[in-house]
């Protein structure tokens, strides 16, 4: 069984769109809402795509803006202009 990669955000209007984008791009995503925060787990590999977030927000989005809302992550990170990926090799 693959380990979960996960990401958690503070709950706000921006992250509502980001989480919607994650759910769309990662069919196995499990969203877990907790007070003031939201955590998303995906087995093996979690990807956030800039294009999908932009579509949800209706504006340009720089993936480094994730810095503002992040609470924690799990998995090895790879960050490019278009994708923010967390994954475990197992």
């Amino acid at each position, binding site marked *: 069984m693959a380990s979960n990669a996960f990401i958690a955000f*503070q709950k706000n209007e921006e992250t509502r769109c980001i989480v919607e984008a994650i759910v769309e791009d990662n069919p196995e995503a499990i969203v877990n809402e907790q*007070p*003031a925060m939201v955590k998303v787990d995906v087995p093996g590999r979690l990807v956030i795509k800039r294009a999908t977030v932009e579509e949800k927000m209706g504006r340009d989005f720089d993936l*480094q803006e994730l*810095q*503002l809302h992040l*609470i924690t992550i799990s*998995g090895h990170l790879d960050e490019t202009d278009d994708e923010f990926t967390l994954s475990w090799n197992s």
Partner: protein
Amino acid sequence: MDMKVAKKLGLKERYTLMTRDLAWDTTYQPMDKVFPQVTFEGIKIHDWDKWEDPFRLTMDAYWKYQAEKERKLYAILDAFNQNNGHLSVTDARYMNVLKLFLGSTPPLELMAARGFSMVGRQMVGAGPRVACQMQAVDEYRHFQTQIHSISNYNKFYNGMDEFAHQQSRMWYLSDGKSFFDDAITAGPFEFMVAIGFAFEYVLTNILFVPFISGAAYNGDMAAMTVGFSAQSDEARHMTLGLECIKFMLEQDPDNLPIVQRWIDKWTWRGTRKLASVGMMMDYMLPKRIMSFKEAWEIYFEQNGAALFTDLARYGITVPKCFSQTIEEKEHVTHQSWIGFYMKPDATPFHTWIPGKEELDWLSEKYPNTFDKYYRPVYEFLDQQEKTGNRFNNKTQPMNCQVCVSTIKFNEPGDPMSTCFRETRYKGEKFHFCSDHCKDIFEHEPEKYVQTYISSHQGLQGNCAPEGVDVNAPDFNPGDHIADYWKLDKRATGDFNGSEDQKNFAAWRDQATKN
């Protein structure tokens, strides 16, 4: 008119240009003299250019996003304070968790800032050097913002103002002090494993995620915004720690046993430090979202296992202490709170016996242990309190020479007896809470004989306020230690009947009635 703007450089190119390409090798002095600390731990690095910070954050982007975080944070803090937010927390017992947090956390953030400034200076590669510099600035920010957020509470509640004096002197704060003293006096690579891995990956994930979510649940918007804002940096810090571990393992197979020993050691040290964080979740938050046990399972057992499975390709194995930590998750928070309750004169925060509903919640969350071992203790203590015989342990605690927790945890496999180990070194006896701490000591005894242990210092006459003759025949160290700690008597002992309790009730009354 539309103008075609030249395509910006990609993130990878930008990062390379703005970090590695700005670094140079020294020529007036040989590199090994400029960076003398990177070899003495035995770690072999052949190519520093193989290090790449996965966040690829350049300095200009760093300042931009950090400034934005600060603006958001202070807007929320101001709003919370202007609106007398402290009166909207669940109940006044909550303030005590802030008191414990204030003494135990911001001083460690400051130590982290110092540590990363030092280690950043020692790293030969530009990638880790920049990342360490950012982390040093982040940790300084955490130190400041945590104090700022609690300073508003300090205007209203007792026991907060002397945290900086108490941090390096008081018994119950010595575990955190020793954690950072140990890390910062190690070499640069061990420091990265201690803080980047154990502190960030194991500890802050529990302290700043479920605990802070719990603070939000209890109505403390100030702690929430500060905690989450800090944790947004911690995600980057964990990545740096992980990257450092991978880098060492990839550079040379000889690094494996050294890294393994550090992972074993610091996982254990992190676990011990977490007992008090877990206690904050299980006992000190009036409203609870998650037990320590549940948090431990998500953030350590699953998340830690994910990491160890991943690192298995380099030959890393699960830390030696892993199975003991799994057994202990059902015990340590109860043992800790009982321990604090039993010392009512020795902390600047109040304690209490959990109410009936709270005991039931604990039974439900800890079905294997609570009713069997701990509920009867609380019922006994409660009955003693009601008959005017409140338990008060006036003796100095015995502490572990390595982790400096008071010796109170149980023997593995036997919850009814206390785990206690000792060893002799140069004719002196040293005491430990566990086999793991004993092993750590035996590997580097010269280091750990220097541990600051408040009880020993008190008994040696080093904890008397100025003007007290410690050589007088009737000198009793216990008589002065509270003054030495600058302990506010109003903040000690039982919550029930305390000034904080009365003030909060009166102010809340004023806020809700005409």
